[in-house]
């Protein structure tokens, strides 16, 4: 997998490049700001872009802006954003779109999960940090989710993170059929359409949560 890494902290960048290389990725470029990222992504055509949200020159949202620009010019390039803490405002538009992920930086230390997340994103799927999903879930009024059972709420969150039914079943120690049943129940209660595809589920759930978050 050919990866472009954008991160202004040299320490973190080098560490990330090393981890990715050891995990079998081919890091074709490691840059330190948004403009260089946009240039590298459009010329090198990588399989995945991993970018820090906060980068020079403005130290606010350069990474997120570059990601949006990449998405506009090359929609087929998957993008994974990293940040120190949750900043939803810069990337609300990208959340829930195919081939997009957003993780807290400390997730890279959970190597297996991180590699799983980048492969999901690279494959056109989704990977959202549990905290981001929580932020989305929290920001909607409690009564709407009150109709869901506790287990259903848990499953809803994990779906939003971008995991497959199999992964969900494994995590909760359930059979895939049980997970399926829960999913149908959740979708019925929320009034969402479910055609069984993981990606569309993620999109539907995230769009649902996000539409509440924006109110």
């Amino acid at each position, binding site marked *: 997998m050919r990866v472009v890494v954008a991160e202004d*902290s040299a*320490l*973190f960048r*080098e*560490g*990330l490049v*090393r*981890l990715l290389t*050891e995990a079998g990725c081919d890091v074709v470029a490691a840059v330190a700001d948004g403009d260089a990222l946009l240039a590298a992504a459009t010329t090198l055509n990588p399989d995945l872009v991993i970018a820090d949200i*906060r980068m020079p020159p403005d*130290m606010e949202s350069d990474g997120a802006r570059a990601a949006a620009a990449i998405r506009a010019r090359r929609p087929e390039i998957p993008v994974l954003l990293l940040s*120190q*803490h*949750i*900043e*939803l*405002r810069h990337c609300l538009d990208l959340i829930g779109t195919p081939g997009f992920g957003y993780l807290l*930086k*400390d997730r*890279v*230390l*959970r*190597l297996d999960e991180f590699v799983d997340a980048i492969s999901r994103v690279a494959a056109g799927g989704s990977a959202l940090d549990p905290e981001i999903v929580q*932020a989305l879930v*929290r*920001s909607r009024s*409690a009564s709407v989710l009150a109709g869901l059972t506790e287990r259903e709420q848990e499953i809803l969150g994990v779906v939003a993170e971008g995991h497959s039914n199999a992964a969900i079943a494994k995590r909760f120690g359930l059979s895939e059929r049980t997970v399926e049943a829960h999913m149908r129940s959740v979708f019925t209660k929320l009034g969402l359409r479910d055609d069984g595809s993981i990606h569309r589920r993620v999109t539907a759930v995230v769009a649902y949560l996000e539409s509440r*978050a924006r109110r």
Partner: protein
Amino acid sequence: MRVHPPTARLLTASATLLVAVSAAVNLMTETPSLAALSAAGVFAVVIGWVIVVRLPDSPVGPALAWCSGSVGLVDSFDATAAGALGEAGAAFVARFGEGIWPVNLLGLLALLLVFPDGRQRGRLWTAAPVVFATGAVLVFLGLGTGDEPAGAPLALVLAGLPLVGLGLILAVASVFVRYRRSSELQRLQLRWLLLAGSVVAVLLVGGWVAEVGGAPLWAAYSPFIFGIVVLVPLAIGIAIVRHDLFDIDRILSDGAAWVLTLVASAAVFAAAVFGVGQILHRYTAIGSTAAAFLTALVLLPIHRFVRDRLARVIDRDRFVAVKAVEEFAAQVRAGRRQPEEVEAVLRDAQGDPGLSLLLADGDRWVDLDGEYADDQEGVTLAGGSDPLARVVLTHVSARARRRAAALAHAAWVPIEVSRLRLSLRRSNERLVHASAAERRRLERDLHDGAQQRILATGMRLRSLQRGLVGEQAAEVEAAVTELEETVRELRRLAHGVRPSRLDDGLAPALEHVRAATPLPVHLAVDDLPALDDTRALTAYLVVTEAVTNVLKHARASRIDVTVRARGERLAVQVRDDGVGGAPGEGSLTALRDRVTSVGGTLTVTSPLGRGTDIEAVL
């Protein structure tokens, strides 16, 4: 009434010529004292010319010049009659010259009628010149046609004289009527004439006293003559050209006050001397000494009393304005009014709605809201050598500036208190802004510095872990887990320093508060205008602090949080249905300090048993 400038110049020139002729004629007839008097008349002519040059269409210049010119005309007549131009003409001129003296008053009459701006107020006063002229003609005919002042000519004179007098009286009365119907400016100008007239009257009385006291005639009356020929034209000149130069109200009021004080203390002295003499049946040094002592004792109180009373009458505007400001200052001291109202009070007192008050802030000026203002011209109030405040006027004149200076001086305390309060508030604001910026920097340092390095170290450990097995691998795993915990810890710390949720705006940050609160929180946030960091942080902290208080003390079952935009302001309200009776101090004090330091207000309503309502307006 305006006159054509060429006419004004012609009239003034003819008066000048007459004065010159009379001086020359008097010199030829070797009557130097009269010549000197004529020469003194030059003064009125000169000032007449000054007015003609400065205000070419004003009738006052020619009228003033003719005050001397008409005297010069009569003077030349008299001199001619006395034989200055030879015997032949003398008899003829002498015959007609008998009745020409009312002409002396022609210039004065004109001046009384046209001063200060030539406008007539009241139809009756147009009668004054007609009456005067009729009288003058009758007198002229009566005295100039008969060889003997008897029969018909005498009747003419007897009919003419009262008319001449009536004309003059009407003219003088017209001045008073005009004063009552005039604008402030004309009144100011008329007061100059009043001042000169009073001085002349005082000098005349002085002359009588001196004459009775045995002074030679010329010495007794020369101050009076000087007053007529110099002071009156001078006062008229100032009134027309530079009425604003001196504070006529103060001069009049203070001058009159001193004259009255002198008269009163002289009366006291005389009464004391007389009284002591009556008691002791003789006049002794003791009597005079006691009288002097008594007079010295009462002099100042009398003067103060007289000055205040006169100021109230003569200098009424200024007196009332200063009183109003002093009254306001007293109310500020008593705590009944806010010192910041001083600008409005000054506007009222000054009668200048556009007046603005600037306060000194180091080298710059700020208005009462603390906004920087341009360095504008104005009346500066100084405390010691440092400027305190500046009053900027929209109607600028020397008089307005003097008035503003007096008012600002009366308002010194409220102005200084406003300035100090403002500078305190501004420095508080600066501190809060600085601390908000500092929090932000600290949070960023944590995120971009420490956290990144810990993560980098963690990644190195992960790399290292690849080559390890068994116990060592487990050891590294434990170390990495430890680092992950540390990063989470740091994130929480940074969040406490300044909630990075605020990066997404106040509403999302409050959503998090709601989500993290174990009680049902009903949150209503309006569409808010863009908030600066300080206000957003303050609003956020008000909510978190208030919610924490509710959880700790209120035993409430629900909390209502509303955030509304009220014009420029932001209203944050936290209401619960708990036990109420929140104490005024403790964490509420800290909250109030925080809110007031950014120029906001905090209201707490907490009746026992009926919940607590905290509202901050930022």
